[in-house]
């Protein structure tokens, strides 16, 4: 564990894998959505081309230091989140820096990039950025509630905050996965997940036609490229976290890919089927049934699972 160089090397490997997978995933999603619309859709490698194109832009504007640092915060937030989540169970190589902190650290660190990004976008002076961030933050406070309740339920269930130990407790058969032992918690968490991924019906944050993609409306060129990179890593990290907490984790990369793809597809399928909520509607939505389900999950855990 104190072997820093190899630790860093392992992490770079993880980062690359998760990053590439994340990019690919966004291609898969786009193609999936295209199928829903009866199109062929972009090539699977299109996200890589777009990324390279943005990196290859030759001009850019900067609205100030914070604007410039916004994507840096964003990317650091994504990479950091991944750093605090173990990718594979029982693997030293894929353990990352999860010994630095537990589930709470990962949960709170997710905000790091968003906060920095919000500050950067704010400095652009564009009203749509601010509107988008305001909506995003407002929606975030709402979906955090069922998510937090679900997390609490499983922390109570497994009596630990350590992600590794939570995965360990789910080993030994599909029946041990949280999704089967504590379904209420997983339902609450998955609804929250819909909000986190910002697919419809919770995509009012970006709303391309209303507030041209919201927070990053002024970002372009390499800034945008960095944010795309982050999106890949961050989405991967989030998926891995969900997989670890609710779906038994993964012991090898194949399992990881299958599980995370399946989790992501939930959001994509829901997104393909629904129109958009107004932000106050989505806030009220999350604070009603998902929250009740979360509360029920805790009660269920306390009453049924603990004794």
């Amino acid at each position, binding site marked *: 564990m104190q072997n820093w160089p190899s630790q860093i090397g392992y992490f770079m490997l993880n980062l690359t894998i998760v990053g590439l997978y994340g990019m690919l995933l966004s291609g898969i999603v786009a193609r999936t959505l295209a199928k829903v619309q009866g199109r062929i859709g972009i090539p699977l490698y299109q996200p890589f*081309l777009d990324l390279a194109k943005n990196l*290859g832009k030759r001009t850019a*504007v900067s609205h100030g230091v914070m604007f410039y640092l916004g994507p840096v915060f964003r990317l650091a937030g994504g990479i950091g989140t991944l750093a605090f989540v173990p990718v594979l169970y029982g693997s030293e190589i894929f353990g990352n820096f999860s010994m630095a902190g537990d589930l709470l650290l990962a949960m709170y660190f997710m905000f790091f990039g968003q906060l920095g990004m919000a500050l950067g976008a704010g400095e652009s002076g564009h009203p749509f950025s601010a509107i988008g961030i305001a909506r995003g933050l407002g929606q975030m406070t709402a979906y955090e509630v069922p998510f937090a309740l679900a997390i609490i339920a499983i922390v109570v269930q497994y009596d630990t905050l350590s992600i590794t130990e939570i995965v360990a407790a789910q080993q030994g058969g599909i029946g041990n996965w949280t999704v089967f032992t504590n379904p209420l918690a997983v339902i609450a968490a998955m609804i929250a997940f819909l909000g986190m991924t910002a697919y419809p019906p919770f995509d009012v944050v970006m709303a391309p036609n209303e507030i041209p993609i919201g927070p990053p409306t002024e970002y372009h060129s390499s800034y945008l490229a960095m944010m795309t990179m982050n999106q890949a890593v961050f989405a991967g990290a989030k998926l891995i976290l969900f997989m670890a907490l609710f779906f038994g984790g993964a012991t090898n990369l194949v399992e990881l890919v299958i599980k995370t793809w399946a989790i992501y597809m939930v959001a994509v399928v829901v997104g393909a089927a629904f129109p958009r909520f107004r932000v106050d509607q989505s806030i009220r939505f999350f604070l009603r049934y998902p929250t009740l389900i979360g509360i029920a999950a805790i009660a269920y855990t306390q009453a049924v699972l603990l004794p």
Partner: protein
Amino acid sequence: MDMQKYALGPLPNDGLSAEDRDLFSDARPVPYEPYPVAVVEKFVNWVRANSLWLLAFGTGCGAIELNPLMTARFDAYRMGVQMRPTPRQSSVFIIGGYASVKTLKRIIRSYEQMQGPKFVVCLGICPINGGMYWDSYNTLNKFDEYLPVDLYITGCMPRPEVLMAGVLELKKKIKEGRADGANRYIENFEWYKANQKRVIKDWNMPDYNW
């Protein structure tokens, strides 16, 4: 033609009030060089050609042809074409048919806010010679006097198939490194500005909209 000479230094921004001059940048745009390594430039050009982000700004009647381009029948996504809602992130500006004086101002703003390399495609006959509106008081007859055009797709109106052919042509041009409109605009900045200011009388914006 009285061409205003812009020194290499800050732009005068004459159209703005003194108060507004503090609010807009007065920097003069500079053309960009190709990457020093030729292979890189070639690769990047290929990437650019395969990732065309259109600015979702319908400037004229031709914009109606853009929608079928993206939907199931033609599905330009296959060719790496995507719509972006903001000029900052777009690389292709399709002038959708005739451009009026009033729209020109908005077109100029949006074009200047796009980041280079950026490409202008003119759709239909009107940007070429005014088409059926050639004698209208407010239709621009030769659009390339105002902005550098990388590709014309003629017709009135060109169908989406033609548009797709144009996209493929643009791709080819980009790959070959011939789509250099953005640099041409800057190199002939004075000329373009003079032309623009000739038709736009209420010039209440900076000389270059960063």
